[in-house]
């Protein structure tokens, strides 16, 4: 769909665990993904797959008892996982913005919409008041909100769902970020309104060149809007690559199964396809591959070996499946493929980083 630019955000081997009295909940376990400038990346998965945790980890919004135990997130030469709160705060809303599913809970009901947008500008720019308001009207107009000067005086509850979401997007784009993280932004909206927002976002992306990471459970949205996609299951991105490629020929059995189960109104079949069983408990992940218990193609080795990322079609199509053993593995900051990381043996973060740090740098150097 779009010609992508340089790598903007490089997620490498990210693991986020939540410590509880009964053990670690591995919300994210060894995830890798790259977002390029101007690209729309879709992240699909069922509930509990870790999609929201991934976005939160990128923004540094993980709090006790959760922590990033492994991996790195490179953004413009800095590892976001190592930044201080203050440094992260400067990035949020400014270089990297976030929008959520429910626009009404994202907006403060006590302030007008105009106030909230100018607030963002005040926090991150040196603009004068007049300039801020000018920019606010510009933004509202950009988002196709009619009569911007009037609507800026309205309160959030006076907007319909679709309009409120546009306001949230306006706030997110105010400081011209490079990257927009969107957590199910249209899931709460009606179909015809969602269509408006999808169209709008594609236009904006063309105009502004902002990259978007779009978390959703809707395969249709991914197919029609995204350039690349990541499929998540039980805390792992199990497949990542170009949308056209993956839909045509999924390389991971879960992706394949998932694509089969999506009911579309163009399907003429009678039954709903389903994947038998249910996702594993994130506190008690099986040894080896997380999907083995439900996988129609599971092999012996799947229960003992945790698959690494294999490059299944160039270095920008990755699949975490032993079916592809033999393909080159993707360099990553986590330990060697054969190691099974059991709950008690989660590697000490410092050790791995110092080991894996070199490998990551070299890989990046190779890409540049």
């Amino acid at each position, binding site marked *: 769909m779009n010609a992508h630019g340089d790598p903007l955000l490089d997620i490498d081997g990210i693991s986020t665990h939540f410590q509880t009295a009964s053990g670690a909940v591995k919300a994210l376990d060894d995830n890798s993904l790259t977002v390029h400038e101007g690209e729309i990346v879709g992240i699909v998965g*069922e*509930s509990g797959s870790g999609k929201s945790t991934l976005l939160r980890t990128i923004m540094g919004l993980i709090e006790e008892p959760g922590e990033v135990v492994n991996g790195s997130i490179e953004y413009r030469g800095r590892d976001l996982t190592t930044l201080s709160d203050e440094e992260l705060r400067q990035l949020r809303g400014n270089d990297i913005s976030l929008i959520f599913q429910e626009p009404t809970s994202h907006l403060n009901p006590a302030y007008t919409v105009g106030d909230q947008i100018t607030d963002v500008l005040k926090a991150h720019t040196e603009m004068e008041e007049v300039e801020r308001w000018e920019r606010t009207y510009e933004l509202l107009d950009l988002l196709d909100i009619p009569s911007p000067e009037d609507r800026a005086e309205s309160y959030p509850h006076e907007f*319909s769902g*679709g*309009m409120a979401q546009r306001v949230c997007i306006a706030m997110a784009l105010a400081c011209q970020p490079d990257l927009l993280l969107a957590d199910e932004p249209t899931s709460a909206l*009606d*179909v*015809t*309104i*969602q*269509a*408006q927002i*999808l*169209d709008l976002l594609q236009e904006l992306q063309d105009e502004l060149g902002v990259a978007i990471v779009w978390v959703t*459970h*809707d*395969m*249709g*949205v*991914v*197919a*029609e*809007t995204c350039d690349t996609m990541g499929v998540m299951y039980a805390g792992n991105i199990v497949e990542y690559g170009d*949308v*056209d490629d993956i*839909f*045509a020929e999924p390389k991971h059995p879960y992706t394949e199964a*998932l*694509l089969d*189960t*999506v*009911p*579309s*109104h*163009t*399907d*003429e*079949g*009678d*039954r*709903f*396809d*389903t*994947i038998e069983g*249910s996702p594993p408990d994130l506190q008690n992940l099986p040894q080896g591959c997380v999907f083995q218990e439900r996988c129609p193609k599971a092999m012996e080795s799947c229960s003992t070996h945790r698959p690494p990322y294999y490059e299944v079609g160039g270095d920008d199509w990755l699949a975490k499946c032993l079916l592809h053993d033999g393909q080159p593995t993707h360099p990553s900051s986590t330990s060697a493929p054969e190691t099974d990381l059991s709950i008690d043996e989660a590697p000490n973060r410092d050790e791995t980083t110092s080991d894996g740090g070199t490998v990551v740098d070299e890989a990046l150097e190779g890409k540049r």
Partner: protein
Amino acid sequence: MTLLEVNGLTKHFPLDTGFLMNLTGRDRKVQAVNGIDFAVEEGEAFTLVGESGCGKSTAIMSALHHQTPTAGEVTFKGHDIASYSKKKLRSEAQLIYQDQQDTLNPKMSVGEAIAEAIRFHDVVPEERVDERVDDLLNRVGIAPGDKRQKPSAFSGGQKQRIAIARALAVDPSLLVADEPVSGLDVSVQAQILNRLMDLQEEFGLALVYVTHNLGIARKISDKIGVMYLGNIVEYGDVDEIFQNPQHPYTQALLSANPVPDPSIDRDRIVLEGSIPDPIDIDEVGCHFAPRCPEASEECTTSEMGLEPFEGDSSHQVDCIYR
């Protein structure tokens, strides 16, 4: 036999606008449902689809007299629905609700909840109640051994299946389901819906399904009614309508719905504006006219109503240009 027949069903809610407004005669109402007609045959699956504010939930609640309709006739099994006693009607037509987490009494074991329904409606003699509870649980895929558990021991999807068992316990002839699987994971949805369709066949039930999800609507229904702002704008055979939508709203709706196939390059029909609130709608003319790409002056003044498309009574459209 036609199980449920609805004619001119209307449901308006008064809007409290204050004393003075009421004095001056301007009493505003929420016109949730504006004279709709549909029929459900024995064993048939009929789906009402539409976006928020279209009135689909209110329509079924009014049809079954869970709320009293403002106007219209509803006949059930050939008799006026108002002539049924509340108890009798409820034993014939059961409702599955949208909220899975909250649909079972947290203080009653699931077996008790089902048994209560069986006993209250005298479905089987006392000696056979336990047996029936076990049977129903089996049919919905819940282990009968778990029947002494309270709802908190089950997942959302399981609770909904238990709710289905409870509905079937009274031996109804009609099941009405209002978005029963929304919020659940896609694979859980699939499991429940497949089972629902199986049960529908096994028990010979008619099904009225309410949803905004077009993918589900297509697979589950025989017949479909597309609702917009209190009216059914297109009505008839589901495959026919999905393949050959005639009403501009239906066309926009289907086109807006993302298709999980990136190789298809389609132009979305994007409608302008938001979905209006069903308040202060003109009684005359088409309610979709303000947003319709094909609208004209005539649209706001014409008599509307479902008419067969090209003479085919299994495909009806409410549009003066079709």
